């Protein structure tokens, strides 16, 4: 059936690619969130609010994580490596 309808395959492949891309972003977000929580948040939990120091640490942490992500991405594509 698919053989008679190549467009059908493309759709499925496109869907697969989009799902993979989304999975990648979700994982990037989760790792970033975990890592910045570890680096910035006081684990004694003396209060339920993030204080000012924690908030600005989080902002900078996200920004730096993003830069590291971009930097390594460039290294890999420049080196002619596939992503890994």
């Amino acid at each position, binding site marked *: 059936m698919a053989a008679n309808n190549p467009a059908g395959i493309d759709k499925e492949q496109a869907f697969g690619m989009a*799902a993979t891309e*989304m999975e990648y972003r*979700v994982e990037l*977000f*989760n790792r*970033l*969130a*975990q890592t*910045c*929580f570890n680096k*910035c*948040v006081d*684990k004694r*939990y*003396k*209060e*339920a*609010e*993030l204080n000012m120091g924690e*908030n600005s640490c*989080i*902002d900078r942490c*996200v*920004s730096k994580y*993003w830069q590291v992500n971009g930097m390594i991405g460039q290294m890999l594509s420049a080196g002619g490596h596939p992503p890994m």
Partner: protein
Amino acid sequence: IDHLQLRDSLRMYNSLVERCFTDCVDNFTRKTLQKQEETCVARCAEKYLKHSMRVGLRFAELNSQAATQD
């Protein structure tokens, strides 16, 4: 797609529970949570959610900046 989102929510829920349990519960001489453990878990969960929201906002900003540059 909908149930992918549900799956991701449930994963984050699981990781929130693990994190707050690990950070707040260390005494196993009783089988029910003590008041102070409950307080700790509640604060931890609040903080974690606020943290997630803040990271989500910053992440979205960076994503949309990147999209504009393309």
